[in-house]
């Protein structure tokens, strides 16, 4: 039996990396970690999945109360303000959950990182995938609201996954950058909490972009890649007559250039920086 044993050829060992080790193993791991984490959160707590629902719904009810009863921002500029608000909050919850969980992800997986060889990028990416599972579940509630408020299904709904894909890739890029930065600079976590809060207000979630009333402000708002994605969701899914498309709000295709630069720049930086740091992460922990 021993003589049958294959004699493997020597292969060069390159050390740890962000992606190395074969794509099949990469995706196996990514899927496994994401699913396990999802299960852990929702079967590990008493209320389970309800938590993932309660959080955005609670935020939604408070904001709805404030912005329809106190400030009245949305009323006349949006056809179905509650649906608009809920969709925005659910999508933003995905982004903030994915990125803020990613910040400490690599460090909190220290035990695994310091003892096992595997493509390091799996860890921050898995937080995005887990957050995506939550998002998909939450979208069911959004769908109920959409239908309840009388939004009719349309062919443009088919474009919704495109927006989700952009949102996912963006969140993944930011996650990679943040998780690697956190290994070196522990204050990344605090900074990101503040930045994420700022981003919430710099994205047309609580107010529609056309409520700003000024072209310059609208164009500035459209420099935020999230604004572009959220606005297109409003156009494609809620298909209001009054809603300007992202291109219109930005004042033409040229107006989308800053957002595109920021979007791809962030992803590029995230991937580049994580890849650069990956080999040394185990030492820096």
């Amino acid at each position: 039996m021993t003589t049958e044993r294959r004699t493997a050829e020597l292969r060069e060992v390159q050390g740890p990396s962000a992606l190395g080790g074969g794509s099949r193993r990469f995706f196996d791991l990514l899927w496994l970690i994401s699913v396990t984490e999802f299960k852990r959160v929702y079967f590990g707590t008493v209320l389970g999945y309800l938590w993932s629902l309660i959080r955005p719904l609670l935020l939604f009810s408070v904001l709805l109360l404030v912005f329809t009863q106190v400030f009245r921002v949305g009323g006349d500029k949006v056809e179905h303000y509650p649906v608009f608000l809920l969709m925005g909050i659910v999508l933003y919850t995905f982004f903030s959950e994915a990125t803020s969980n990613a910040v400490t992800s690599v460090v909190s997986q220290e035990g695994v990182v310091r003892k096992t060889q595997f493509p390091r990028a799996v860890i921050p990416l898995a937080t995005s995938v887990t957050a995506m599972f939550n998002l998909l579940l939450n979208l069911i509630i959004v769908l109920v609201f959409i239908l309840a408020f009388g939004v009719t299904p349309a062919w443009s709904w088919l474009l919704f996954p495109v927006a989700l894909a952009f949102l996912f890739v963006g969140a993944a890029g930011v996650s990679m950058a943040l998780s690697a930065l956190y290994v070196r600079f522990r204050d990344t976590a605090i900074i990101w909490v503040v930045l994420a809060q700022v981003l919430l207000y710099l994205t047309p979630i609580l107010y529609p972009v056309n409520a700003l009333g000024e072209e310059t402000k609208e164009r500035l708002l459209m420099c935020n890649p999230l604004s572009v994605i959220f606005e297109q969701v409003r156009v494609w899914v809620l298909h209001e007559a009054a809603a300007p498309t992202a291109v219109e709000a930005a004042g033409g295709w040229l107006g989308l250039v800053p957002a595109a630069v920021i979007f791809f720049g962030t992803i590029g930086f995230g991937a580049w920086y994580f890849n650069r740091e990956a080999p040394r992460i185990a030492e820096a922990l």
Partner: protein
Amino acid sequence: MPSRLDSALACGVAHGDLPSSPGANMSVDEELTTQPAVPGAPGPDAPPAIRVEDLHKSFRIPTQRVDSLKERAVHPFAAREYRELQALDGVSFEIRQGEFFGIVGRNGSGKSTLLKLLASIYRADSGRIQIAGRLAPFIELGVGFNQELTARENVVLNGVMMGLTPKEVRERQDAVIDFAELHDFADLKIKNYSSGMLVRLAFSVMLQADADVLLIDEVLAVGDASFQQKCADAFHQMKAEGKTIVLVTHDMAAVEQYCHRAMLLADGNVQFIGDPAEAGRDYLKLNFEAGLPQIGLTEAEADGARLLDCSILDSAGAEVANIESREDIRVRVELELLRETASAVHVGFVLATADGLGLLEFGEHLRPEDQQRPYPAGSRFTLQGRVENRLAPGRYFLNCGVTSAAGISIYVEQISTFVVFGTTKTGGVIAPEVEFQVESEEPAA
């Protein structure tokens, strides 16, 4: 037991017949042409499983750790102060397929760094590492568990990390948990596990990964007796299956028992590669050379005589702090008389254990040749004694006394100390030759 050993031997022979790999590096092969030290070791023409060439790895240790952006912004240059720590400084070696290879060395000699480089957890500064086949690491008593997950989830996750498909892992997970004897705790979160349970699970995961090369760091130091026996059985079985195993340990008996060859690392360099017994001896020597407690001669002057020096020597006459078991204990003492002495002076020693138990006494008399011509004041004497060494490995102390009828009376406790080292473990303090003769009688039919 004998049957296992036999199969291990058989496997070694089989491996010797395997063709050598075409890309074999001559310079490395040269040092491998020596005969394997242990019977059953794969021969020199067995294909290599691990080849390491001129490996360097250093760590930069910041003298003042800067972990926040603010500190970096306030002191943009202060953050760049590092102390360079050379963990591995040009290490080269080759391990053959089917070999059980030990790596020994003192703490900080670079063993763990080397293992982490082999396991792709660290990246080398320069040099080459080549490995044949799949590798399963077992580092720092674990395989990397996520504290928040259950044992079962961790088993699956680790299996995939080690290169199995999720399907393969799910098929094996019950076997893994059974081997670790953790059936009742399979769905308990890892953070609630005791350290012994963790090690058992980790070891079990590593075994089931069915890798070609196993890297094992200090598994023998932990676990209860039954688990240690399980490890031992697993080692024998892996040996028999012709797996390549790299074992890092401080347990020299284990090195001798399992390893075909061993490597001694010291300060990031390869000190020795070859016979495990010799590597073990070198290791022990290295270990006890450092940290020799300086035992004083503070009270060594009294009543007309003074002890100047007392040291332990090796056979070449050099001062040592450790003696290999069975090698003679040589002691040298220097003595000065402070006044004229006519009567005999006795220089005596008591050999004692660390807790003060006297084991034996020996000594010598100094007598002036002529009673009428006493030793003048300022006479110096150097005495060298040789004592047959039947001591078990351990630390021993010498007490020294100088007495004479003329009133000299010095007694210095623990004037010198030494360590007897050897790879055999025995209880007690005396290790004489022991021989048994066994006669058996079949009961009459």
